[in-house]
């Protein structure tokens, strides 16, 4: 079983110590430090987040998205055809993102995340996966005066270029996040069309992650899309357990079994018994065990505890279920 994370990681320590990104950002905003100094602290915070995952025993890490303001802004502000507007609530969470606004034809003008990927890959002793916010989700969370389908498909063509650039950079696993797909069952055909467009001609290993709900109405044919790994959130979407029937042999499951939105710690028994349930449909050597979504909803110390528990539970499950 592979241990991994879904994406973001808390940017600052719970109790002080470590690189002080929060202070550096506010000093930069006040004009008291230069961009280079901020960049140095951001890089240090990124290395710190990667090292914490590596030390916890996570097999495939991310850069923690330390440089991301939010999953929408990070991509939209570098794509042609967008500007980024005011704050909106992010799904049903108590966090916010800046809403992208479509103001013209959408296009890819150059790599957005490749330099960050390369930095992380150089800083990590474990493989690093890159994460790209999916075209359907980016369209759903943006404001546009054009039909959703048009915007989503244009985004798919633009973000395909980003995926090809990550592939070119040698990224071993590229993850596409589509939480909004779970909120719009009536648009399932558009979701699938968009994802086919996004992945056309891509040869790198791809993962599709969903969270904040279950894939009812999308599965099982969701699993036929050209991704090798499908990430499901079993915490917010317990119905996902029943949707594994017909999970294609040969594909891999990202099992979100630890609640990334609550500090309550799962017991070993809970995780192992959930993995036992999953193993009836997907062999454990094709399971990526991960939290239910990005860990940035938690304070850093709690996120770290979740990583330690995740690795511990993976080892226990391998022993108990092999």
């Amino acid at each position: 079983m592979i241990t991994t994370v879904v994406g973001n990681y808390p940017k600052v320590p719970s109790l002080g110590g470590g690189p002080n990104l929060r202070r550096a950002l506010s000093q930069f905003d006040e004009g008291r430090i230069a961009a280079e100094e901020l960049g140095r602290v951001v890089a240090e915070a990124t290395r710190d987040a990667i090292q914490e995952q590596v030390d916890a025993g996570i097999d495939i890490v991310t850069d923690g998205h330390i440089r991301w303001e939010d999953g929408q802004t990070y991509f939209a502000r570098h794509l042609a055809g967008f500007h980024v507007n005011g704050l909106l609530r992010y799904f049903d969470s108590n966090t916010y993102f800046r809403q992208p606004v479509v103001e013209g034809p959408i296009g890819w003008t150059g790599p957005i995340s490749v330099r960050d990927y390369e930095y992380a890959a150089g800083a990590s002793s474990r493989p690093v996966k890159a994460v790209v916010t999916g075209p359907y989700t980016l369209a759903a969370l943006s404001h546009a005066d054009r039909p959703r389908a048009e915007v989503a498909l244009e985004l798919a063509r633009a973000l395909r270029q980003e995926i090809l650039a990550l592939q070119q950079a040698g990224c071993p696993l590229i993850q596409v996040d589509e939480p909004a797909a779970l909120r719009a069952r009536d648009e399932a055909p558009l979701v699938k069309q968009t994802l086919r467009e996004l992945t056309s001609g891509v040869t790198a290993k791809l993962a599709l992650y969903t969270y904040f709900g279950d894939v009812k109405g999308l599965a099982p044919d969701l699993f036929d899309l050209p991704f090798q790994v499908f990430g499901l959130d079993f915490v917010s979407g317990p119905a996902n357990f029943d949707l594994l029937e017909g999970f294609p042999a040969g594909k891999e499951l990202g099992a979100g079994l630890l609640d990334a939105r609550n500090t309550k710690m799962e017991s070993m028994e809970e995780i192992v018994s959930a993995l036992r349930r999953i193993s009836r449909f997907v062999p454990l050597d094709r399971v990526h065990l991960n939290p239910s979504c990005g860990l940035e909803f938690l304070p850093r110390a709690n996120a770290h505890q979740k990583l330690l528990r995740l690795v511990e539970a993976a080892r226990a499950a391998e022993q108990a279920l092999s």
Partner: protein
Amino acid sequence: MKGLLTTGVGSLPKPPYLAQARNQAARKAIEPAALRQLELQATREWIQAQEELGIDVLVDGEQDRGDMATFFAEQMAGFTISGLVRSYGNRYYRKPIAVGPVGRRGPMTLEMYRYAQGLTPKPVKGMLTGPYTMLDWSFNEHYPTRAALCLELARALHEEAVDLERAGARYIQIDEPALSTRPEEMDLAIQAMGIVTAGLTAHTITHVCYGDFDAVYPGMLAMPVDQIDLEMANSNYDLLEHFRRHAFTKVLGLGVLDVHTHLVESVEQVKRGLRLTLELLPPERIYVDPDCGLKTRTVEEAKAKLTVMMEATRQVKAELGIT
């Protein structure tokens, strides 16, 4: 004719000396008693400012509160407070964590209510954060379900509301800004609010914001309160279209000041909002106030905005012959 009373939504900006003292207190650089003196001073200043503006129903301005959920959780049994969590940009806050049975250790808002009410003959509102919002903004390590925590919080907040009423509060506001987060849980929010307001004779209000209004209206009209307070200015009074399709059956708290912009509204803008609303509701069912708490503005911006609100209300009342 009566009506178009003016009021506040809850928070008012903290003057710079208080913001500085709060930072110092967080670093333990000044004593809690010294901070308290400054909180009382700022409260005095705001009560006086509201009286000078001519506001009818006052707020204490929440000069002693930071995060509206954490303020209560810190004083209750069963909670600890988390490490830092990012809300957006470079903004971080600490969340309550329910780690055991939650309950009231004693009054949480009574001392400040009594202090503020003692400064003025005008009514001061009792201000509580609602049980659903407390639930939604907390981590839960103890209760098996969200509902169980929510209803327990409701019982604790009911005790607080009863204490406020006994102390003389004629208006009690129980804020539920999280109401629209998960429309599928609105029944829980309504049930919990019923526990908080059970048996109260005070005029009860709930403030709701950040909403996907389509998802919660008209369902929110079942909230067991006398008045629902809504942010109207920041959507250019679009919510009124919903009222045309389905009548608004409560007393309305009509937000006429966008609290998220530095720009001060014009008197004409506010008058337009009042006139549009008066097409649908009689003046005695409208309380005029800002969209939300004003704590994110500076003291000067807040006063400038409230001055416009008061002037526009005075002019519209004069047109209607309301004294």
